[in-house]
């Protein structure tokens, strides 16, 4: 069997607070294979975002191991983590996080800038990605000119541009209405069908139902890890 995309062993994360060390993750073990579509659920404060930040190499664990496509990243230097984030991971955030002063094309092309891709191929690829999410007509518009759902599609186009193996999305539909959320989830579904591994955090059961596997956090632990019931899968 091929190396898992994500392999996490005994992962702990404590935050330093005024009241002392606060343990947000208390030993998490998880394995995510290539092509999986995982929804992470759980109550507020259970450590979902903390976990996602660690998966995204945006933060380093206090303890434990994290292997991303076979590489132990727990103690990698910052610049190597940046390269991993650039080449291997695509991020989709709740708040879209597009650069407000750059047009959509430039926003989508940004990861390629840090991958040292030349200007022309950069543009061409950005156009392709915008077309992919159905927004090529807005290439020169600023993010503020388009709707939230459209902005999230642009963010997905940006996440896809460097052909990542893994997409991490922390509450990607949190700011969207249910109809738009469905569209975004359908898009994730397509990407997953193409073989991209997807991990997303959500509070909503019907969003989680799009995933093939549901992992539930509680108080810094994983309390359940199940395949999405066939009935739920069939209904979408």
């Amino acid at each position, binding site marked *: 069997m091929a190396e898992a995309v994500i392999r996490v062993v005994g992962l702990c994360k404590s935050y330093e607070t005024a009241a002392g060390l606060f343990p947000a993750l208390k030993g998490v073990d998880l394995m995510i294979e290539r092509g999986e579509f995982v929804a992470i659920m759980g109550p507020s404060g259970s450590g979902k975002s903390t976990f996602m930040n660690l998966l995204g190499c945006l*933060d380093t664990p206090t303890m434990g191991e994290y292997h991303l496509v076979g590489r132990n990243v727990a103690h990698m230097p*910052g610049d190597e983590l*940046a390269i991993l*984030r*650039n080449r291997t991971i695509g991020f989709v955030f709740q708040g879209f*996080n597009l650069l407000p002063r*750059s047009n959509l094309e430039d926003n989508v092309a940004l990861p390629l*800038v*840090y991958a040292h891709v030349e200007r022309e191929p950069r543009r061409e690829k950005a156009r392709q990605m915008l077309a992919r999410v159905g927004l090529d007509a807005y290439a020169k518009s600023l993010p503020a000119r388009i709707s939230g759902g459209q902005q999230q599609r642009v963010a997905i186009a940006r996440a896809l541009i460097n052909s990542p193996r893994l997409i991490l999305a922390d509450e990607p539909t949190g700011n969207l209405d249910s109809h738009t959320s469905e569209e975004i989830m359908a898009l994730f579904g397509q990407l997953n069908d193409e073989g991209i591994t997807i991990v997303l955090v959500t509070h909503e059961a019907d969003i989680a139902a799009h995933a093939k596997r549901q992992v539930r956090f509680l108080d810094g632990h994983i309390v359940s890890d199940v395949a999405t019931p066939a009935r739920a899968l069939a209904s979408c």
Partner: protein
Amino acid sequence: MLGPMLGEAWHAMGSNRMRTALTMLGMVIGVGSVVPIGQGAQYAVAQTISTMGSNLYIVIAGSTSTGGVRTGSGFGPTLNVADAEAIAELDDVTHVAPTHQGTQQLVYGAKNWSATVVGTTPSYLDARSWTLVSGYAFSESDVRSATRVALIGKTAAENLFVPGEDPVGKTIRIRQTPFTIIGVLGAKGQNLDGRDQDDTIIIPLTTAQRKVFGVPFAGSVRVIMVQASSAEAMPSVEKSVTALLRQRHRIREDMDNDFYIRNLAAAADSAAETTRVMSLLLGAIASVSLLVGGIGIMNIMLVSVTERTREIGIRMAIGARQKDILTQFLLEAIMISITGCLIGLILGIGGALLVNAITDMVIVISGGSVLVAFAVAASVGVFFGLYPARKAAALDPIEALRYQ
């Protein structure tokens, strides 16, 4: 990498024009005032002093209005050739040159040019250490017999003769009188007032008085140039010249001189001092402005880093390394300071050209000072941009992403 970053820096700069413009102001003023300093005003003054001749006094004819002791005319030339000859007998006086000068039209063939015509004696060239590049100077006997010979300065020669033509032996006309050019003077450049000393024709004093200027009193001159043997001898020479002239002009104890004595070296010194003070002042303005400009840049970059914390977080999440962020903000700071520098240079050079055009002052613009200005601007950008840029690069990606 640098391409898109430069574009973004430019973009960021343009996104808040007013703020950027105000930030640049310090740089603009700083660089603008560096321009005239770099132009070596001091150098120009030192040059001029050395071309005037050393240890020189000029005695200028004044008025007799205070008492009318002499002829009753009130105003008029009070110096004459005999005065000059008497001064020449004094101790520590090396050269004395009575001169009479004025602007006259020169004609050569179909060409016209107006230049300063100096009627004087051969000691004039010695007093001013003025050498010839070709031909020879006129002599005392030329002065005695009022021959029509002339020495021509570089500028006058260039304007009357075609390049390559040797003026020596040619005949030009001054006030209808033909003069044969017997020598060409070496170049001296500007004098203290910024006038071109090479736009000159030197002819024997007697010829000048009879044929060119026409003087009411035979032998009277406007100016006598006196050279002391050394700088130390100058005060005593001034005293003895004054005493001699007062005695010769029969001026009573209680009456003012009917002449003025000007110490050219002192005039030059004070001009040099003025320029030095000006340069110091401009230098102080420039340094303070650059400092203030730099602090302004640092301040605005810090504001910008704070404002764009989220953007920095996004960039980091997407794969920007610390040095990418550092470079981006540093480039932005440098771009602000270089643009400020450019505007300062344009204003400074424009101002200098304007001063040159409407006044007698000549401000030379050197490529060196432009380079220095750019180097200074770039260093100010790097120096004051580094701290904010490092701050940006050191941000924690998660904290930055969470920033509202």
